[in-house]
């Protein structure tokens, strides 16, 4: 009986690992993840399919530039968003060491790991494939269009993943692979921010007075990049739509040949890289080294040390020195800045005080979840140090809230001021917005810290995966409830104050001072309810942390 080949052995172990990761986890968590994936995936793919079908139907003469732009955008997105996954699969990971020292051909390692590396790119391409299929349906393409589209998109995934591997074999000569992965993750995050802002701007344009669809700009954009290999699958597919079989065959073969060339090059360069020990083994210590430490300056006794300050100082030092965390913070900071820049332009500003309130609320949730949610799980094994110290979990929670609050508060207050100034609101409204920002920051940070403490994953190596589904959902639900209560309270305070002076018209209800007082009373009750909500979240978090032993038993 012949033994299975090394490639198959590695692939099988990867499949078993993936299966275990999926099915040997909390059943409720698995269902929640599946539902969220289906919901968002379906929403994204459905949306893109509809756009493709509509464009294919109404812009039949522009199918080639449409498809060229789509496949180029897909390739660019895969290049940026999928890069961290490619680095992690092919260049980082201790399990790679086992494969390297085993009597296995590098080619087998490359092909087996390439499948893992393509995960993110396949996910992105699946969403875009919906758009390409939509164009075909809209344009009334022949049945052969669809398998050709899937084949060419698959070839594009292989080509881009191979290109990423090639780039990394070059980068790994100077930069440790782990650092490159962290920087790539940062670039991916920035790309996400850029896309989000672009989407918002396009929405404003679509629904704004000036908005009118115009394909001429798309055609003029595509013309200079027409020669790029990313447009070849588009040429092939548009030729299929036009019924030009010879042209379609030519561009399809060119696409496949290009992918094959890149794949071969990547395989060869990967082999050389592994043999020279770069990527996995090389230069990791450089990441951890810093400049010479300042000499010890003995000072006078300052009394007992403060655990809360010690935790805050430790977190700050860790944050400053952790490239991965810094790269995660960068998009979080740039998003509000980009937003302000984008919307402060003439004709794009969201007018009105309540629009500013909505913006500040959104930003508070966003910043809190980025900075405060992973603050307790981010302790990783160090959490056990805190558990063993003579500290209550209340003290730990308080220290974490106090550590995460200043940066969130600073960004929100600056943002509030900018929004009010660009919106040309008065100083009274600026004060109201600043008070709201302060209240929201304290509330959302407390809720986010609690969410992280309710379902921490101390064994996660990445902050983005350090909070379980339950913690994330609790944090999200509590944040939404808190924002509804807080904005409701603000509305009651603002309108109630106006009602007491009789300066407001609130529809069919007759505005009287008594009604104003009642509204102010209602506002106080909503504030109290919001306070109780935050207190409850912290109380549950404290109870969970005190009894937590999930990963302690395992690590």
């Amino acid at each position, binding site marked *: 009986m012949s033994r299975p080949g090394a490639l198959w052995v590695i692939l099988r172990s990867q499949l078993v690992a993936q299966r275990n990761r999926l099915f040997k986890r909390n059943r409720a968590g698995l269902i929640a993840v599946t539902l969220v994936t289906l919901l968002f995936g379906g929403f994204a793919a459905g949306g893109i399919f509809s756009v493709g079908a509509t464009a294919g139907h109404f812009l039949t003469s522009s199918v080639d530039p449409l498809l060229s732009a789509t496949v180029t955008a897909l390739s660019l997105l895969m290049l940026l968003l999928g890069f961290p996954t490619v680095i992690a699969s092919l260049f980082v990971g201790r399990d790679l060491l086992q494969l390297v020292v085993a009597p296995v051909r590098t080619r087998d390692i490359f092909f087996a790991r390439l499948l893992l590396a393509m995960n993110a790119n396949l996910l992105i391409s699946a969403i875009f494939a919906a758009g390409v299929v939509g164009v075909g349906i809209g344009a009334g393409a022949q049945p052969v269009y669809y398998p050709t589209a899937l084949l060419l998109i698959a070839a594009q995934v292989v080509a881009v993943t191979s290109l990423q591997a090639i780039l990394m074999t070059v980068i790994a000569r100077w930069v440790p692979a782990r650092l490159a992965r962290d920087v790539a993750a940062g670039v991916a995050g920035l790309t996400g921010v850029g896309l989000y802002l672009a989407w918002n701007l396009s929405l404003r344009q679509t629904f704004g007075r000036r908005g009118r669809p115009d394909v001429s700009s798309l055609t003029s954009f595509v013309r200079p990049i027409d020669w790029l290999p990313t447009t070849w699958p588009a040429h092939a597919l548009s030729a299929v739509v036009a019924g030009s079989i010879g042209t379609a065959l030519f561009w399809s073969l060119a696409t496949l040949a290009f992918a094959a060339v890149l794949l071969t090059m990547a395989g060869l360069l990967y082999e050389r890289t592994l043999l020279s020990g770069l990527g996995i083994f090389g230069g990791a*210590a450089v*990441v*951890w*080294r*810093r*400049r*010479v*430490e300042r000499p*010890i300056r*003995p*000072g*006078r*006794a*300052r*009394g*007992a*040390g*403060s*655990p809360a*300050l*010690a*935790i805050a*100082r*430790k977190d700050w*030092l*860790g944050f400053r*020195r*952790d490239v991965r965390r810094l790269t995660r913070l960068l998009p979080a900071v740039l998003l509000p800045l980009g937003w302000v820049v984008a919307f402060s332009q003439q004709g794009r500003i969201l007018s009105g005080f309540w629009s500013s309130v909505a913006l500040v609320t959104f930003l508070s949730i966003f910043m809190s979840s980025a900075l405060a949610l992973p603050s307790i799980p981010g302790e990783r*094994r*160090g959490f*056990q*140090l*805190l*558990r*063993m*110290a*003579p*500290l*209550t979990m209340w003290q730990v929670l308080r220290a974490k809230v106090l550590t995460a609050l200043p940066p969130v508060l600073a960004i929100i207050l600056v943002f509030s001021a900018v929004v009010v100034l660009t919106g040309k609101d008065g100083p009274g409204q600026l004060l109201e917005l600043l008070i709201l920002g302060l209240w929201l920051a304290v509330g959302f940070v407390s809720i986010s810290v609690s969410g992280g403490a309710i379902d921490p994953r101390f064994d996660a190596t990445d902050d983005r995966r350090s909070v379980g589904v339950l913690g994330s959902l609790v944090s999200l639900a509590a944040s939404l409830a808190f924002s509804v209560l807080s904005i409701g309270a603000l509305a009651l305070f603002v309108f109630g104050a106006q009602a007491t002076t009789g300066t407001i018209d609130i529809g069919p209800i007759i505005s009287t001072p008594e009604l104003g007082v009642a509204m102010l009373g209602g506002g106080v009750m909503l504030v109290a309810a919001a306070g109780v909500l935050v207190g409850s979240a912290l109380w549950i978090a404290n109870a969970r942390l005190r*009894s937590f*032993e999930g990963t*302690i*038993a395992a*690590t």
Partner: protein
Amino acid sequence: MTPLDGGVAAVEARQLVKRFGVVTAVDGVSFQAMRGEIFGFLGANGAGKTTTLRMLCGLLRPTSGTALIDGIDIMAAPLAAKARLGYLDEEPFVHPHLTGREFLDFVADLYRMPSGRQREERMARLLNLFDLADKNGELIGGYSHGMRQKIGLASLLIREPSVLLLDEPTNGLDPRSARLVKDLLEELAARGTTVLLSTHILEVAQALCRRVAIIDHGRIVAVGTMDELRILAGSEGANLEDLFLKLTAGPESREMIERLLEGAS
């Protein structure tokens, strides 16, 4: 010094049980370690040593039973008990993005040690003792396993706890550092610190510990001095390794090797 000598128990496990779902990791473990004693806690891999230690230091809540540190129930009065003890895991809990000195400073603050010249001098002495002073500016993330073990030990010693729970403290240390740790533990015990030493390096246990407890499949199978264990096992003149193997009733290693080689040939 044994419980019968009338010494004061600094660490006491009373019928400790820990279950993870249907698995019983620790099943009714009881023993006492006296003040100023180095007490060995021995067992094979997966026998329940680390789980027991983690219950004693308050990291895991016992399913039933009580863990006492200097007579204080760690679950009933955790802060008072934790202030008295130091625990070193076999993989020390350290923060990779801090330097050695920053980490010691952090731990000293956690335990509310007064800051100032005395603390700085003590940190410098400990870093020198463990040959870490010349790692000026290097982050713990770049330390070797042995260096992490040393900084973990230093973080315990900086605050002079009265009870030390050590899980494989010489793991990964070079011979010189291992010797240093052994000498240090003897010196600390002589000054009244209680050391509960969990290890499967039996030579270390035999050299350092006056009494040992042997745990097997979550249960204590023997507690006592070497002489008491010999009587229990009925093996006069046997060393700790022989006693351990006999008391944990595993198959003879020679027999296993012969079977293995027969299968290979």
